[in-house]
């Protein structure tokens, strides 16, 4: 392959990389707005024994979803209750919450939260797939085509005195 062709091809290749980089948005990131939408629907279609006071959502550790939930709280309410978002730094904080969200990076915290929240009416939602089988009430699932779905563990919901509407059960996958 003569040099002129080699260098022409290399130049064309790098020119294309330059053109490709004119787009600043990086490769597909998790759309936490979509996850927040699901959490909002969980608030709508799950019944808690108590309907008084603020609806406190605890996010374990740091996660971009916290910002999305705060945005949600500015305009929406959970069945008339004001949505408040707090950080959970230790399992005791979770006792204040109506819903606890465990980001993927904090999945190892599930066990401690389970023990702390035994018998409490707190909906534990995990970002990582499979955690509904390990004690979370709901965990998210990403399908092959990137569709966002969720697993439901009804036994866990029952143990926490939470009732889930049939319409929501139909959308998810029952794993317990």
């Amino acid at each position: 392959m003569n040099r002129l062709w080699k260098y022409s091809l290399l130049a064309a290749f790098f020119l294309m990389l330059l053109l490709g980089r004119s787009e600043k948005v990086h490769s597909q990131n998790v759309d936490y707005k979509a996850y927040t939408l699901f959490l909002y629907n969980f608030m709508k279609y799950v019944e808690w024994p108590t309907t008084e006071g603020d609806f406190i959502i605890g996010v374990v550790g740091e996660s971009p979803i916290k910002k999305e939930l705060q945005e949600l709280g500015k305009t929406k309410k959970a069945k008339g209750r004001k949505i408040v978002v707090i950080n959970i730094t230790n399992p005791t904080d979770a006792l204040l919450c109506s819903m606890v969200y465990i980001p993927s990076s904090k999945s190892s915290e599930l066990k401690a939260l389970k023990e702390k929240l035994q018998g409490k009416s707190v909906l534990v939602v995990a970002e990582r797939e499979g955690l509904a089988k390990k004690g979370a009430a709901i965990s998210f699932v990403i399908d092959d085509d990137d569709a966002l779905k969720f697993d439901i563990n009804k036994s866990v919901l029952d143990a926490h005195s939470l009732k889930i509407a049939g319409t929501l059960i139909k959308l998810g996958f029952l794993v317990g």
Partner: protein
Amino acid sequence: MKRLLPLLLLFFLFEKDAFQQTTPAVKDTFDFYEMSLEQLLQMKAHGVPSELEELINSLILAASKRPLTARESPGIVTLITDEEIRNSGARDLIDVLRLVPGIDFGVDVEGVVGIGTRGLWAHEGKILLLIDGQEMNEPLFGINNFGNHFPVDQIKKIEVVRGPGSAIYGGFAEYGVINIITKSATDLPGVSLSGTAGQMRTSMGRRNFNLSAGKQSKDFQFTLGAFLGQGTRSDQDYTDIYGNSYNMAGNSNLDPLHLNTAIAYKGFSARWIMDYYETTVRDGYDIIKSEPYPINYTSHFTELKYSGQIGKKKKLTITPKLNMKSQTPWETIWDLDTVAEDYSKSVQRYTANISASYNLTRKINFIAGAEVYQDKAQDNSNDSSFFSNGEKEVKYFNQAYFIQALAKTRFVNFIAGARMDIHNVYGHAFVPRVGLTKKIKKTHFKILYSNSFRAPTIENINLSTEISPELTQVFEVEAGYQITRKSLLTANFFDIITKDPIIYFFDDSLQTDNYYNYGGAGSRGLEVEYRMRDKWGYLIFNYSNYSVAGKEKSLDYEVPDNPSMLLAFPTHKANFNLNIKAGKYLSISPTLSYIGERYGYTGIDSTGTSVIEKFPSLLLANIFVNVSGFAKGLTVGIGCYDILDSKYKFIQPYNGYHAPLPGPSREFLFKITYEVKNEKTKKP
């Protein structure tokens, strides 16, 4: 330059901007959070995909029989869409597949153009060509003849597995699989008619007509595709190795007729394909003939299939199917024996296949199945030729068992599978494979090891005393990086080792054709591809390279004094495929193929020794423009293939005394498509 290269690459990949996240477009919060539950099911975990992400996240079946995205599929896969085919104005599968890394074409004998991959001649039963699941390779020699043959307008997508596929598909998928899926009723607007006219420098290039129609009504679907054409391989002069010439216009006709019809009702489907390919040739095997003669390829395919999910949780899917194909390839019935020998053999293959797919969990899947087929071949000629059993008819029987396990974990997807074929003459072939794949955020990787085989065909068995399958081991590694949401860079390395390849030789003393297993073959190389897709169009650039240095080679395939390459196929090849949408109704698509130096035998010297010639590198430049919107349902395309009139020739990839066969000269194209939309068949 060499030192600068890695630095430049690092700069583009890791510069700060590449990591900058932007705030997603602000949505109307009120409307967004009041979505219905049905709309909730449409949400994607990673937001609205870009056009590129939609493509690279689309599900591929060919490499695993289980839908996986292209980046996680256990094969080095190229996906070609109908949009790319339509925009490029591709005339036939040669134009489409030439843009795939590593794929190239060469001439066999009697005007037949076959396919090669990664430097290796894959014409005889080494690349499986499927159209809607039907194996197009004829069972006598395992070949497919390319050139104005198959209807590109009917294609919805092509999954090209650029690596072994025998663990799933058996003995014709040693080096690759080309899985063509045509448009079904859900893809078709109602009725689509198209006509293509091509004019080469001095003669008609092609006149093709295609009709596609589809109707969907609740659970019932009907699809019809009809393609009729007349074409010319070339209007250039062909000169045989002895210096005799003729002009190919009028002596290299390629006239196809292809019908494809299917019905589907719930889990049941039936398909029938008829393919008539009438060719006229004059090149023969070595010396040209005094006049042209016809060689026809006739095929009929019938399939009945049912796919049913069993159990409350529908974890188990059983798919039984019956296939019958009848093919009469290479049919030469000519009155004048001085022109060509009569050849007419037919084969019927009856296949029963059952497979079961079981989802143990959402992440673990098993597939197992069995297949039996019988080949029945008849010698239809009136002369004294017969099969090796001394009869005018011969039967062969093959049984196969296959299994595959797929496990998707957080860290890696693991796939393992194997297939065992047991033939009543050539014995057995066992081919396992294993692969690891994973997409993690911006990057993906694949590590694949596969065994594959090429099954001896009916004529291989007939023309040998003892023959075995040729066995191949392939190691492939792929890495990919999504540079931005609209661009993706992938690179893969491959290493192929073939043992006991089935080789043809002509016994001068006995004047007989023969096949036997001898020696070895293989290649290794690198393939790189860059894809960018945006609202303005798309850009695809790929480069492929192979080397046979250090590999076993057959004398008939090697280039003397050049240990790193083989006959006919360039060690360097690059493609550039661009589409620009200039407004709502106009698109412009230039394509370029850089084909590096090649070698081929072009003549014989005074001692009767073949003379080899170096073919310099060349550029095939094409352009096609589509215009729509000026009349309802109407699209007009005009373009030119081989603008530079490069005088491309198909070279014979072995020393078989056939001179290089000229391809089409510069060809101007005109295409008109008219679509009548059926409101009921619109996509929801």
